[in-house]
């Protein structure tokens, strides 16, 4: 329901949950005209209430995880989460360190995982495309 609405123009909110910035600059690069995400209708949303997709990077620092939970609640349904980078998927090199939770899916449900440390901008776009395809199929 309402899912087809986001199919054409998903807005993304990027949330850094304790990333090393490696993933973040690649997310930023992926959103510039060189890689042109707007051909998929993708735009950066300024605020969670406008977002359809939350893109999480980083190893989920405990303070930041609290924020992520709040942001997820503020985002209107239908909403999707992409975990971007080794850190958000498994904790990466920071697994088992005392300030981190290690996995994005321990805090919010994750729909797409994009591996890499950091993933290339192309990979991030591919992850978004995968999600959109799934949404189009009604999944």
């Amino acid at each position, binding site marked *: 329901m309402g899912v087809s609405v986001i199919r054409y123009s998903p807005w993304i909110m990027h949330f850094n949950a*304790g990333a090393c910035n*490696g993933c973040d600059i690649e997310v930023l690069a992926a959103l510039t005209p060189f890689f042109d995400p707007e051909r998929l209708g993708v735009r950066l949303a300024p605020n969670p209430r406008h977002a359809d997709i939350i893109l999480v990077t980083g190893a989920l620092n405990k303070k930041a995880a609290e924020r992520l939970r709040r942001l997820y609640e503020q985002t209107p349904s239908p909403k999707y989460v992409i975990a971007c980078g080794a850190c958000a998927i498994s904790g990466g090199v920071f697994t088992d360190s005392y300030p981190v939770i290690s996995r994005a899916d321990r805090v919010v449900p994750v729909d797409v995982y994009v591996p890499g440390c950091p993933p290339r901008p192309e990979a991030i776009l591919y992850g978004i495309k995968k999600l959109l395809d799934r949404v189009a199929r009604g999944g």
Partner: protein
Amino acid sequence: MAVVEIPIGPQHPALHEPIMLRVRAEGEEVVEVAVNTGYNHRGIEKLMERNSWVRGMYLAGRVCGICNAVHTQVYVQGVEKLMGVEPPPRANYIRTIVMELERIHSHMLISAVMAEIVGFDTLFMLIMRDRERVMYLKELVTGNRVHADIHILGGVKRDIDEVRRDRILSELRVIEERLKYYRKVFEEDYTLLKRLAEVGRIRKSEALSHCLVGPTLRGSGVKSDVRFDDPYAAYSEIPFDVVVRDEGDSWARMVVRLEEALVSVGIVRYALEHLPQGPAVPKAFPRAAKVGEVVSRVEAPRGELIYHIVSTGGGNPYRVKIRTPSFLNIINTEFTYLGHRLADVPVIFSSYDPCISCTERVLVVDEKKGVRRYVSLRELARWGTT
């Protein structure tokens, strides 16, 4: 008049600790700023104590993705001292090339972000486009766009061959042209001058007593550059200038960066043309260090980066203390916002190059009316103009 409290962040990757700026404003005027951190603390110092010397190398790179090669360098050069190994000259040159490419892309990134913050979107897009050229070069040399991981104890992992060298040299010509153009834009454009000049001024004595480093310090007229004062890698053999400006405002800091990027192009070119012969990739590397301690410093794109490494012998570090440049530049600059307008806060903040994100968001709380709403840093930069 209502006193407004504005927490900026934390969902924005300023330094390796995304932070929160609590700004209190009376009307338009900023009266108090307090920095709140801990959103990106990952316990790396503790992790290093648990991991071997070699693994620490990868952890060091992952302190910050934007300046990862300098983090690896500062760690590796310290550990090499403790282990008593010397990298071959060719390896030193290759390390230098990678670090300078990183400096170019980092300085372009913050210039782009600054353009975006003041609402000059075209410039943002243009710089980001040209930055991809540098990323391409980085990939050409190291095999990775972001995490270079080219260092290894006692050398580098990949050599540079003739074909790659010529490719880099020809690409550098284009990059140099573009950088000169952007410097001109920052020096002459009316919008940028209006937003940056005279904003967030730091005097020379203040810069020193508040322990600021890097372009922020050099923008206030202090000639201090680790590459020059305390040479490491191949910097003692390469001629280059230290860029200093006396104005001390946000504009000076940005121009210092663009100048420096041009100097870096020169360094990469010189290093490629004078690449020493000989091996660069070691066949084996040591795994245990002697007892001792070392204070290792390098000049990261954002300023002096310092590691204090303590070894009690064996396969692990006993203690690694990491101090990143942004840590000083962000936490110790609370005083520079005072008296400026609310709309200047993002500009001053970005002029310290606090790593980046376009998604910074601010929560505006109007204490009198009790309303809360989110605005982006960009919107805040235009506060009062719309």
